[in-house]
């Protein structure tokens, strides 16, 4: 029977805290990224060879792309955060497509509990990422603009600006929800789609859907990081509106 569960299933606990299968997948994602970074920077050469070439193409390409979004002035401040979002989310999304994620597990009484599940298919994970993004936006706003940044939300100069400030506050909160649900919805719906397609017709038919999920995983990572970069840009240009 088809196994679809909105919430990530618990597979164990450490000192009373539950370990879910998506937490295990998050650890696998972290291990992949850490091992890749270690292997690429082990023997840094001026003329790269081997894995260092791949790392340079990746980081260089991302740097140029985000420079075109945020501009020359602030790219060095924002790049670590935004590139980390992109690399983590794309690795987590693509790892969730490997055979074994969602299929290898054990039976807990009557129901099937998979051992691994795509890391970003857990709402807890995406809410965490969204909170980090929005809090980082406020942090960079205060750091670059200074105390004047709080006039974006609390502005007593005239009644219209006051209402606008409250609207901005609500809009920041809605960004958390929108970031979290966009990523969760896309990846979880992709998992459900693949499970249903494989359940209906396991031969050849899941192939175009796997291609679609590869594409969707890439686009969602791109959109998450690009939106973070755009909102960071908006936040740090708060004082400069009337040029």
């Amino acid at each position, binding site marked *: 029977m088809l196994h679809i569960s*909105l919430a990530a299933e618990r597979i164990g606990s450490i000192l009373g805290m539950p370990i879910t299968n998506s937490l295990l997948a998050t650890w696998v994602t972290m291990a992949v990224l850490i091992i890749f970074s270690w292997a690429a920077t082990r023997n840094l050469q001026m003329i790269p060879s081997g894995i260092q070439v791949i790392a340079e193409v990746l980081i260089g390409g991302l740097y140029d792309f985000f420079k075109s979004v945020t501009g020359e002035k602030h790219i060095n401040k924002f790049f670590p955060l935004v590139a980390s979002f992109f690399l983590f989310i794309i690795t987590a999304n693509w790892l969730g497509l490997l055979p074994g994620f969602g299929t290898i597990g054990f039976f807990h009484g009557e129901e099937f509990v998979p051992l691994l599940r795509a890391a970003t298919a857990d709402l807890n994970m995406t809410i965490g990422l969204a909170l980090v993004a929005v809090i980082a936006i406020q942090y960079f706003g205060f750091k670059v603009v200074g105390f004047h940044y709080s006039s974006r939300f609390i502005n007593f100069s005239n009644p219209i600006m006051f209402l606008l400030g409250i609207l901005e506050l609500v809009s920041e909160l809605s960004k958390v929800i929108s970031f979290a*649900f*966009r990523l969760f919805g*896309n990846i979880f719906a992709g998992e459900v789609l693949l499970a249903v397609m494989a359940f209906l017709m396991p031969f050849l038919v899941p192939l175009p859907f796997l291609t679609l999920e590869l594409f969707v995983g890439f686009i969602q990572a791109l959109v998450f990081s690009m939106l973070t970069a755009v909102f960071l840009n908006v936040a740090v240009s708060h004082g400069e509106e009337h040029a």
Partner: protein
Amino acid sequence: MDVSSIKLIMFGLTVAIGGSMPAIAIGVLAGKALEAIGRNPEAASEIRTNMILGIAFAEAIAIYSLVVGLIIKFV
């Protein structure tokens, strides 16, 4: 009309109705972007980036309705 059949029907209706407006929005967005690229082929990559941004916002609404449907069916 028991609860599980209502859940089934509402799941389908939620996703169908909630996905139709974003589909129109994405179509209009992509159409305008193609027009803009046609008028100014040099700016194609900038237009493409902004189009992807706009499409992501529109698609998020469709995803919200899908998540609500999944909650109705499976929770």
